[in-house]
């Protein structure tokens, strides 16, 4: 069967080649764009779903975590709630450094505790224990050519020494700078405020009760289930929608290309179906042959597109002077599965109708078929 399908692809090698190239291009675009959005999505999930964080608190009208701001006195009021086992403040901001790149700056209160959740491991150096020390993500270091002990200035008068280099599970953390909470507040010019609070409860069952209480008693805050945090931010939601739209467009474009190819060969296919039927192939087997032919093209396109995304990502990264936080070094493997899944759907959709159409005639009619 594979052999016959392969032969049929060679029926008109140029047409098959162009179709393949189109599918590869479309799939490469898909993998590339999806690498940006889905990496981000996955990382957020990973960040908040680990280690028992139940509830995330942010300011009610914040568009993104960067613009969220929670006053210190509110933090203290929340601390007094005895249902809360642990309360972890976090500050996030962006700064332009060395006139080139803008970096994320994270201020973390108790780094040692958060470390495992972020998959953070020191590649070199130590955690900060003196003032004016900072940790730098390995991607930042690589992009900006920084070494342990170098100074990285984070603004007017804020000369910080690099105490450690780390890697983590999170692209955007690797492309960031991590400071103790108080220093981050100073550097970011937000002395008495934090961006987010991560809450852990004594009893998980109390989660919805606690969220309700916070939302009721603190008009300036919203408390959300940690896993649903991404939905709370317009910008992040947009990114997700963007990913979905890209997927749908990919499906439509590949479908159009494939369908066109298969319709173009309608006459040959009808004849072929007539011949195969005459020599005793059942309709199902003939349809299967044509779907297989489409699947070979689509799967080839998906694998090709996935592979093409590697050099494209590299090229993208090189052409950005900035540290690009959402760009992974390589597309993750699950995108290959996505692309393959789409390939199968596209093959079925695009080949099924032409195949059924080609096999609709009585054999004798199909053999006479002219247009």
């Amino acid at each position, binding site marked *: 069967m594979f*052999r*016959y399908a392969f*032969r*049929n692809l*060679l*029926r008109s090698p140029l047409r098959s080649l162009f179709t393949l190239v189109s599918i590869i291009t479309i799939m490469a675009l898909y993998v590339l764009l999806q690498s940006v959005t889905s990496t981000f999505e996955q990382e957020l999930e990973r960040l908040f779903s680990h280690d028992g964080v139940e509830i995330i608190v942010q300011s009610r009208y914040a568009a993104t975590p960067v613009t969220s701001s929670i006053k210190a006195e509110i933090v203290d009021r929340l601390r007094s709630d005895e249902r809360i086992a642990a309360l972890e403040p976090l500050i996030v901001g962006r700064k332009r450094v060395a006139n080139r790149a803008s970096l994320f700056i994270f201020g973390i209160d108790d780094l040692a505790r958060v470390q495992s959740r972020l998959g953070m491991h020191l590649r070199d150096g130590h955690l900060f224990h003196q003032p004016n020390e900072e940790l730098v993500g390995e991607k930042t270091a690589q992009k900006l050519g920084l070494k342990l002990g170098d100074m990285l200035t984070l603004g007017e008068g804020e000369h910080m020494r690099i105490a450690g280099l780390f890697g983590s599970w999170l692209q955007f953390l690797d492309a960031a700078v991590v400071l103790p909470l108080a220093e981050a507040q100073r550097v970011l010019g937000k002395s008495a405020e934090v961006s987010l609070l991560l809450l852990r409860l004594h009893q998980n069952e109390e989660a919805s009760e606690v969220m309700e209480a916070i939302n009721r008693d603190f008009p300036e805050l919203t408390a959300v289930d940690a896993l649903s945090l991404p939905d709370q931010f317009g910008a992040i939601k947009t990114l997700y929608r963007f990913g979905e739209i890209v997927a749908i467009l990919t499906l439509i474009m590949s479908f159009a290309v494939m369908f066109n190819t298969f319709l173009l060969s309608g006459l040959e296919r009808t004849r*072929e179906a*007539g*011949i*195969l*039927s*005459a*020599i*005793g*192939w*059942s*309709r199902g*087997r003939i349809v299967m042959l044509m779907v297989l032919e489409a699947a070979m093209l689509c799967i080839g396109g998906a694998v090709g597109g996935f592979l093409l995304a590697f050099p494209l990502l590299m090229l993208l990264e090189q052409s950005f002077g900035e540290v690009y936080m959402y760009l992974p070094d390589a597309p993750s493997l699950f995108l290959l599965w996505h692309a393959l899944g789409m390939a199968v759907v596209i093959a079925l959709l695009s080949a099924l109708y032409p195949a059924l159409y080609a096999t609709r005639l*009585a*054999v*004798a*009619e199909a*053999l006479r078929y002219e247009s």
Partner: protein
Amino acid sequence: MNREPLICLHNVAKRFDRGETVALEQINLRLHSERFYALCGPSGCGKSTLLHLIGLLEWPDEGEIFYEGRSYRTITEHARFRRESIGFVFQFHHLIPVWTLKENMVAAMLPECSGDNREHRALELLDRVGLAHRAKALARDISGGERQRGAIARALVNRPKLIIADEPTGNVDSVNAMRIMKLLQGYALEEKATLLIATHDEGIALSADVRIGMQDGRIESFKEMHDYCSSKDQ
């Protein structure tokens, strides 16, 4: 001859263009096994249509067709029936042009037999029609006569009891025509198969056991050839 016929047609009719073109009318016919029937008649008299109906490639509008006493109406798996019981040779070879000769053979074989057996059988038949050396050539790359011989090999590949050929020599030169007829007759004799061949060539009709004459969609004559020859001699 009172044996049960291999093929029996009962009041068969076939019309085209929503009934306006009458291709076949009132066809009653019995074909017995191990015989060679030649179907003759002017162009457009309905020969091809009749062969298509018998080969289960098309459906009659009226009447009934039986194969070894079994009505075509009771056959559910048409493709399987065609594969197992009938070898059809078309006027145009109808090989898949982008497949090799061998692939064309193997594709026609029963999926039940093992790959090795199929390959073996394919090569055996190609050898028989003198095409073993072209087994790996694409069907579109070989000559017209070779294609027609390939098509014959394909029709014989499942050892059918009935071989139907629609002007198998219509598109080839006389040398190839002779060769093709020899192949078909030789095979029919060896495998005890029935041959039903539509032809314009009276020479072929002369070598048949029975000559069926058609005119305007009807069967006009049905002659055992020794009678036919002797009546001509007189």
